[in-house]
């Protein structure tokens, strides 16, 4: 039996009234557990097992799956469920954690990153939250993109900076060796370094341009695709919403 804080990443229906919940917890990392009766209207687990909920959970160890017995809501993130765009962005964050993190690999840093990013999306700082989350998650997982020196020859970048999905920035001399590269402006380059290295409290003083955030988005999209063996499903829905 263990008690820990966690964020519900996803839920799936099981049988008549049960749910399988994937929770990213502070002390145990990703936990997949059964919440018995959690779809019944008067069940105590009903609201605490809603997606994006930050709660304090009590689990019992099981042979194959653990059982989620109790849940107390710390922060419901209800506004994320009341706004379609915010909901889609929050789903993207949760899917990133779900697909990249294996069970039983706790990382308090990823837990704090997830909570803070959901808060930022909740408050409307969506694009900055997303780009910071992508970069920092990669860093926490050991896929830190190299942003200071060319990943091929190790020199400092010159006037034109390129980003390769294979690991970071590339100088114009080494660029032909890499299949796909994105040109990155100096402002975007500086912003990326800050998003990777700065602590959470300092991020709020940043006021990046929309252009820089789009440049980082293109780079990170390729970088994440390169690291993953399957496409992210929530991206398809985000694309659908852009049609409105």
């Amino acid at each position: 039996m263990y008690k820990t804080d966690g964020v519900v990443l996803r839920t799936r229906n099981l049988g008549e009234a049960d749910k399988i919940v994937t929770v990213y917890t502070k002390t145990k990392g990703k936990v997949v557990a059964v919440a018995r009766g959690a779809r019944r209207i008067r069940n105590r687990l009903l609201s605490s097992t809603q997606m994006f909920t930050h709660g304090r959970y009590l689990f019992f160890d099981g042979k194959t799956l653990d059982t989620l017995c109790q849940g107390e809501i710390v922060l419901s993130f209800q506004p994320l469920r009341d706004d379609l765009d915010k909901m889609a962005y929050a789903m993207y964050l949760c899917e990133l954690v779900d697909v990249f993190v294996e069970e039983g690999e706790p990382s308090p840093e990823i837990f704090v990153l997830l909570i803070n990013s959901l808060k930022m999306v909740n408050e409307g700082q969506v694009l900055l939250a997303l780009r910071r989350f992508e970069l920092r998650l990669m860093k926490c997982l050991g896929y830190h993109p190299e942003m200071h020196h060319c990943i091929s020859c190790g020199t400092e970048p010159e006037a034109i900076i390129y980003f390769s999905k294979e690991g970071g920035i590339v100088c114009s001399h080494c660029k032909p060796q890499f299949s796909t590269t994105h040109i990155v402006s100096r402002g975007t380059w500086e912003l990326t370094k800050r998003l990777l290295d700065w602590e959470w409290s300092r991020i709020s003083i940043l006021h990046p341009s929309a252009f820089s955030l789009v440049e980082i988005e293109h780079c990170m999209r390729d970088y994440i695709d390169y690291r993953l063996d399957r496409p992210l499903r929530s991206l398809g829905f985000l694309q659908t919403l852009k049609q409105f």
Partner: protein
Amino acid sequence: MAQYAKPLARLVEELTKLPGIGPKTAQRLAFFIIGGSKENAHSLASAIVGAKEKIGYCSRCFNVTDVNPCRFCVDNGRDSTVICVVEEARDIVVLERTREFKGLYHVLHGAISPMDGIGPGELRMKELMSRLTEEISEVIIATDPNVEGEATAMYLARLIKPLGIRVTRMAHGMPVGGDLEYVDEITLSKALEGRREL
């Protein structure tokens, strides 16, 4: 399964394929069936085959039905200006039990669930949009009050509102007969939000 006679083993195997039926329950059901009369067994078998062969989807509302269009769609006593959108056909049965709603239905056959790869294209949304003629004055969205249901409701509202049709959502609130102290904070805040004057 070798310990059973072949026909009994096959019956247990087939029953195990049903949702929520494990090997032990399947055995119990199989023994009940073979312990009963021949007529009961034939009646059960013919009911299963009959339902499978005769039941299809209504071409208008996509409810399960044995006649096309279904009895709700052709009933002149129902209000044809209001459409209630539900996730599954079984939700219609629950709503009909209230005897409060007299309009038409539309079954989406699911809800938007991006993380499971279910987008608007996988649901009967195009068919709903084609039903929204000038005659329709209101669309009630009665999808489940969970993340997927809310996403579906908000997506539909974005599609329908520009047409000038009133879009409403089923209210969230406290269950009848319950104690206030056991109601969770999300439901309670929604109930406060949707409070009404007495």
